[in-house]
């Protein structure tokens, strides 16, 4: 059940952001990106989030999980493909091994929605947007 630990990390990260805001806004949604090529089960995260946020500053917040598909790039074919997780990872066209994962490993808090007066502007990290 490492989803429990992941959820703890999620709540801690959001709490750090929230406590840095002067007016402690009411957080309504947390958008999380979860790659399909990770060891994380979205349903497990939802359950852990619900349990761990009861009677906390996140009690009214919803966890919105965006599934990110596994996409690999085949260099011999110069094209992207979606490996079939559990069955086949090599390129379906030329059978070259999966060697360049372009997406699907994400475990990332993408953005937060909140109510209230606008607070300080946070610049998104260009590397992750």
């Amino acid at each position, binding site marked *: *059940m*490492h989803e429990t*630990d*992941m959820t703890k*990390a*999620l709540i*801690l*990260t959001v709490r750090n*952001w929230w406590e840095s805001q002067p007016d402690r*806004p009411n957080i*309504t949604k947390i958008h*999380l990106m979860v790659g399909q*090529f*990770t*060891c*994380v089960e979205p349903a497990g995260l939802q359950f852990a989030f619900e349990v761990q946020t009861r009677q906390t500053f996140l009690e009214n917040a919803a966890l919105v999980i965006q599934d990110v598909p596994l996409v690999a790039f085949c260099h011999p074919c110069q094209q992207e493909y979606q*490996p079939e*997780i*559990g*069955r*086949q*990872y*090599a390129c379906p066209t030329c*059978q070259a*091994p*999966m*060697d360049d994962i372009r997406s699907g490993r994400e*475990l*990332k*808090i*993408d*953005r*937060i*929605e*909140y*109510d*209230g*007066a*606008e*607070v300080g502007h*946070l610049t*998104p*990290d260009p*590397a*992750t*947007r």
Partner: protein
Amino acid sequence: MHQTFDVALGIDLLHVNQAGADHNRAHFDGWGITCMNIMSSPGAGKTALLERTLAGLHQELAIAVIEGDMTTELDADRLRQYEVPVIAINTGRSCHLDAKMVAGGIHTLEHQYDPHALDLVLVENVGNLVCPAEFEVGEHAKVALLSITEGEDKPLKYPIMFQEADCLLITKVDLAPYLDVNIEQIAANVRQMNPHCTIISVSAKTGEGLEEWFGWVRSRVQASPLTKTHTHA
């Protein structure tokens, strides 16, 4: 009327663990230690492999073991007979080691032994084919074990650990005559997601493949830029 605002964070969920792993690695680097994270499902033979590795290499490399795969001290006791430091981490019911738990082991190493004298720390992770792969502990190399009794399909079904491994040991190959298993297929299944992985078939029972494994360990220890030049009598 209330307004809704939206702020982009773009923060990796594992950044706390990642920072801890980087911190652990900096300690190892400072001491000139190469760290390997040994992972597999329960019963694939991690402890047996460590026993053979300590027996085979402890004369030429100064090795310590951080032992996470335990609910008792049974595994640690098996390894202590080689007179190397064995630090047992009480993982309770955790399904994996994380950087913080290993930091506790490093703390013990620092205060009860001389880490500057060590070349290699082998971290035996909790037996689990899924979770340990997501949590770096500060290792320089990941070693995955898969025993031939587990079946050819496991790398396809539990890909992350095999995709990230620097070395795969296919274990218990002495059992091959008694099983309908295609060892080549295991290797091929790993290669299609990890073409750079070194794959070695071993048997801790007969010793098959162990020299090749020792050679890989030596090459990784020597590849470490901070390797000490001391010798062991």
